[in-house]
């Protein structure tokens, strides 16, 4: 094991080009490989001057080039562009001659016709991200606990079935959900109506899943659970299987009940492993464009503003500012920048809080 690792280290070393290459065979053949491996770097450091070290650094950057190039192209430049554009009046109308307008876009977002947009959208955005993360985690954990039963032989079969929502492309299944949840044509309502008819319940009214302001939000969370729980289920199953059996045995010997074992053995260990996943899930859902836009397009329509619907989150509002009728890239970028700051600081705060938990 050790020998292999050291050979790999020698090979991976960018200095391999020079005299060190010839000294490699003896390294592999020596009986004390770790010492020999150490010697190579020593030799190389001693033999090569500062120039060689510069070359080494250069070679290192050469290896990093593909990654740096793609990251620059796909991450750094777009971020820099977004930040720049956020301070301009760039739009479709003045596509060729945008001007810098300072903080005007940010002022616009909170005043004038956009003033009713931000606060309700932000509140729902936080609620959505938190509820989505919590409910998906909760359901995933519950299913994982059920599946983590040594006496159940079909665990893998159930697991394969339960993982299916993850396997279907989300864009397709969200559109399917949108159809299922329709009030007058949706299959869920058809089913409920058939049941109501069968049991002779006269008072049944079809449920406006996507039309009612509050039900639409509930629907989004429920569909989110369907998408999100398989991942958490898998993670929890992995975490559960990593908990040493001795702990349970010890607890058993001490006379702990099933609940006590769960509360004092399973949960603490599980949480330390899965809490970071919750934070990641929160941040992911905070900007989960597809979950909202594909299901409701941000509707139901709000009476007090045309720029956001009842289920719009910040990212879908930003998207709407980009397109018809405004095509205001500057304004949309300002919104995106604001979103970046919000998500970033929230994630940071959560990570800080988690570290405190771990230190205890």
């Amino acid at each position, binding site marked *: 094991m050790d020998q292999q690792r050291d050979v790999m280290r020698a090979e991976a070393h960018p200095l391999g080009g020079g005299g060190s290459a010839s000294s490699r065979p003896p390294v592999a053949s020596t009986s004390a490989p770790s010492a020999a491996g150490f010697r190579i770097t020593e030799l190389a450091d001693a033999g090569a001057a500062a120039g060689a070290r510069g070359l080494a650094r250069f070679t290192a950057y050469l290896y990093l080039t593909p990654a740096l190039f793609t990251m620059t192209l796909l991450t750094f430049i777009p971020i820099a562009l977004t930040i720049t554009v956020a301070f301009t*009046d760039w*739009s*479709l*109308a*003045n*596509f*060729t001659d945008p001007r810098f307008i300072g903080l005007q876009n940010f002022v616009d977002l909170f005043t*004038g*016709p956009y003033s009713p947009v931000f606060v309700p959208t932000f509140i729902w955005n936080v609620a959505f991200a938190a509820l989505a993360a919590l409910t998906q985690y909760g359901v995933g954990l519950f299913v994982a606990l059920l599946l983590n039963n040594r006496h159940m032989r079909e665990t893998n079969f159930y697991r394969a079935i339960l993982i299916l929502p993850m396997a279907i492309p989300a864009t397709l299944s969200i559109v399917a959900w949108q159809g299922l949840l*329709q*009030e*007058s*044509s949706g299959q869920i309502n058809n089913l409920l109506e058939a049941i109501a008819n069968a049991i002779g319940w006269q008072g049944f009214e079809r449920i*406006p899943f*996507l*039309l009612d302001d509050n039900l639409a939000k509930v629907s989004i969370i429920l569909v989110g659970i369907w998408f999100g729980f398989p991942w958490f289920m898998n993670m929890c199953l992995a975490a559960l299987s990593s908990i040493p059996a001795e702990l349970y045995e010890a607890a058993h010997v001490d006379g702990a009940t099933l609940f006590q074992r769960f509360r004092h053995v399973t949960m603490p260990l599980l949480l330390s492993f899965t809490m970071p996943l919750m934070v990641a899930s929160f941040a992911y859902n905070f900007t989960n464009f597809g979950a909202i836009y594909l299901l409701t397009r941000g*509707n*139901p*329509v709000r*009476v007090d503003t*045309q720029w956001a619907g009842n289920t719009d989150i910040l990212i879908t509002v930003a998207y709407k500012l980009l*397109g*018809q*009728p*405004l*095509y*205001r890239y500057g304004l949309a970028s300002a919104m995106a920048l604001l979103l970046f700051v919000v998500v970033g600081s929230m994630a940071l705060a959560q990570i800080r809080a988690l570290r405190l938990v771990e230190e205890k």
Partner: protein
Amino acid sequence: MRLKAIVLGSIVALLAAACGGPAASPSASAGASATASAAPVELLVWTHLTGPERDEIDKVAQAWAKSTGNKVTVVLDSGDFSAAVTAIAGGKGPDVMYGLPHDNLGNFQKAGQLAAVPSGIIDAAAYVPQSIAATSYDGKQYAVPVSMEAIGLFYRTDKVKGTPPTTFEDLRTQAKGGLGFKYDIKNFYFTYGFIGANGGYVFKDKGNGALDPSDIGLGNDGAKNAYQLLQDLVVSDKLMTKDESGDTAKAAFQKGTSAFYISGPWDVDGFKKANVPFAVAKIPSVNGKAFTPFIGVQAAFVNSKTTDAKQKAAWDLIKKLQTDLPLQLFKVGNRIPAQKALLGDSTVKADANVAAFAASAQDGTPMPNIAAMAAVWGPAGGVLDLLAQNKITPAAAADKVVKDIKDGIAQQK
């Protein structure tokens, strides 16, 4: 007034058919020989017409290229219109845009990308007046109308006895009597006719197709009456559901659960393939006033940012396309020609459905072509949605839609 216009129009059309038609081809070839003597150019045409229609365009364009010594490439553009605006602004756009829905011209016009139509390319009098209004700004022609479309009333011939209703009140009674009536009611495009019939309008027409975006007529008493009617159709008549969409209405018509349906020529082929027993009629009058559907015009324009030589050749190509293509587009794409002479053509007249759409179009209003129109669709669709769900009163809807549109126009910087 309108009758006089129609009579006058048809006389002009007859004249155009008698002498304008044949006279057009020599002049076109004269123009062609003129450009042929100049250095040959390479034209790029983007079209929004798909499938067999694109092929027909290509046929005519290649014939023109052969006779003039120029080169033409016809490319299908299925992108967003804002993408085309940015492409032209970046110097990567087409020389000719062909078959673009005219209500999208506004963004190109705002960006100064539409070349004014030179005299001698089209004779405005030979076209349906709304199609000319649809393609001009402040009375000046900036694009050429190719064909047009408007919605009509589809009815099931197996359910509707005798002739289809000619008043909306009659239609409503029949529909409530069990026949059913559904259409995409929350879509402003289909619903505008009810608003127009009641005296509402989007932007005030100052004459010559010049629209005033500061005068919005979607909040006047006529519009309020229309909103009341639309709300009643859903809330009290229960003819349509509060989540009615084009798909659900179409499916109901196809199944026969609703015998009336409002839509456009694009649905004809589907119903024929599904063996639905149907016919199309002019949309009935509302309160004794004509239903005023939006007219959509497929327009062609020349990119003003391209070189003079290319622009000259491009207009020559458009002239050729205007002569040879519209009837072919009618045959392969059910497009109603915008030229009056072609409306009288025997093949067009023989199609009863197209005749009904054309009859509806006669009372229609061209969809506003100014960029401010983009600020109308969202708010108008929004209040129709709220009305259908009974979440807003017609009076509040009238106030909201006007305020939202004004806000939107002010924000279109």
